């Protein structure tokens, strides 16, 4: 596992609050998987927790993070200039199962859920047929797609306001795709309601589906039990057993223990 001060080599605004940061380290682990994440440390000590950010891409000794400046920590990240260092810990969690050949795959990224998608497509595209569905609120939310590598990939884009691609959402497009094609697997990352909707469509069509979930995290390594969710296989840690789960293992994306408290 990797815990190191890495050097920022690029930190650019993609659109609105969306940023892309590239960092370079001496001993970046070469065995990461798409869907895994890093915990990024804030410099300001009053922020006691690291921020979980997905691995957007790995290229030799370079890691890429695609992030949205939302709160205090991610806003601090936007201030990092080239040459500055940031302490990163990872890769953490499990990733998507990319050990596949000759499959028809749909990959769906929604908004910030686009973060792990670039790496995922890179890993899958040589051995499989991929349809990528990207969606977001507006043009800014899907701008990152321009930086993906789309050789031999079917691309479909939707925005809520119709400014890019069709006006609508990724689930509408998914349903269309399923009418025309046989799909073996769906991979997705995005906001909770989207995860639920995609999982439902997958289930109705009997298609294997891997979704990525988010929970607030403290340790990132199953030491604090802060990020647990209830699954059909019992309590699981999003940071360790996830963030990627088989959709059929998830009872209800938003529920931990309906009884609350101590059982």
């Amino acid at each position, binding site marked *: 596992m990797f815990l190191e001060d890495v050097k920022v080599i690029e930190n650019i605004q993609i659109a609105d609050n969306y940023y892309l940061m590239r960092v370079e380290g001496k001993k970046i682990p070469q065995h990461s998987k798409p869907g895994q994440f890093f915990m990024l440390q804030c410099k300001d000590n009053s922020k006691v927790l690291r921020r979980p950010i997905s691995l957007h891409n790995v290229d030799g000794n370079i890691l890429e993070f695609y992030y949205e400046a939302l709160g205090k920590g991610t806003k601090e990240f936007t201030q990092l200039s080239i040459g500055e260092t940031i302490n990163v810990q990872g890769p953490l969690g499990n990733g998507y199962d990319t050990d596949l050949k000759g499959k028809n795959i749909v990959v769906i990224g929604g908004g910030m859920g686009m973060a792990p998608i670039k790496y995922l497509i890179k890993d899958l595209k040589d051995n499989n047929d991929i349809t990528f569905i990207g969606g977001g609120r507006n043009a800014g939310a899907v701008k990152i797609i321009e930086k993906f590598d789309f050789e031999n990939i079917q691309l479909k884009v939707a925005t809520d306001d119709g400014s890019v691609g069709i006006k609508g959402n990724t689930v509408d497009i998914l349903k269309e795709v399923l009418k025309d094609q046989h799909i073996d697997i769906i991979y997705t990352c995005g906001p909770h309601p989207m995860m639920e909707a995609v999982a439902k469509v997958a289930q109705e069509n009997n298609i294997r589906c891997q979704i990525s979930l988010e*929970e607030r995290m403290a340790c990132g390594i199953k*030491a604090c039990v*802060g990020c647990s969710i209830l699954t059909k296989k019992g309590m699981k840690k999003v940071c360790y057993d996830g963030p990627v789960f088989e959709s059929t293992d998830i009872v209800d994306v938003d529920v931990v*223990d309906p009884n609350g408290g101590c059982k």
Partner: protein
Amino acid sequence: MSNRLNISFLGKKLNNPIMTASGCFGYGLEYKNYFNPNELGAAVLKGITMEPRNGNPGTRIAETPSGMLNSVGLENPGIEEFKKLIPSIKKELNIPLVANINGKILEEYIEIAKEVEQIEEIEMVELNISCPNVKDGGMAFGANPEMARLVTREVRKVLSKPMIVKLSPNVTNIVEIAKIVEEEGANGVALINTLLGMAVDIRKRKPILGNIMGGLSGPAVKPVALRMIYQVSQAVSIPVLGMGGISSTEDAIEFIMVGASAISLGTGMFGNPTLPIEIKKGLEKYCIENNIENISEIVGAAHPDGGAAYRNRLGGNNEIKG
């Protein structure tokens, strides 16, 4: 390595006074990719109960200014699973293991203490009467002096292992409760557990935590922890395990100077997973630079009498001269 950091704590020889805070260090091996856990003085494991518990609904973590709230609610696999886990943990950890035990009702505390008494690999017990995140039991025991007396007394009857009672800071008079648990046979006290707090998501107009309230930890609680350890250590004759917001060597020294014989690291490790190693090196360096032969010489140094009376009461118990 010199013996400057070696201490005797509750009759056990520890390589150094640095321990982990229960609930922040999993079951002992989670941090092994970042440092060798055998470098710790002892490992305090995640709290356990008789039955498995799912804990509280999410969201369970919220960051606050210089601190965090958690409402985990003692999610744990239960004692049976714990018993199965321990031998494999002990294979990799040759430092003392401390079990943190919890109950909802008095009988559960007694039952679990009996179980832990039987687990050979567990050398010490931290009796948690202060978890703010469970509806019944937990803090209710720690906040009420007579309940604290009862649970300590009854657990003592079935537990021969060294016992640290972990006190709740959510009380007006911590000294009174510390003295009571000492009277009832506690070999040490641990303080502080988390302070009850809350945070609100102003966008959703709702509390952030699923359980509404949670336990505050991290640097934000450090002044409270220092104050309580200072007060308690002047009133008791048993060692204090100090915790609450330690995130640097300087913090650790402050805790020792107000009266902690050993310290536990919790929230500080989330931001800095190699914190124990940093503090270990830092304490060693501090001792060398200040001609301190053994770290226990400065336990209570910030007391009005420089800690002499408290160290006397502790006896040579806290010190190994090498």
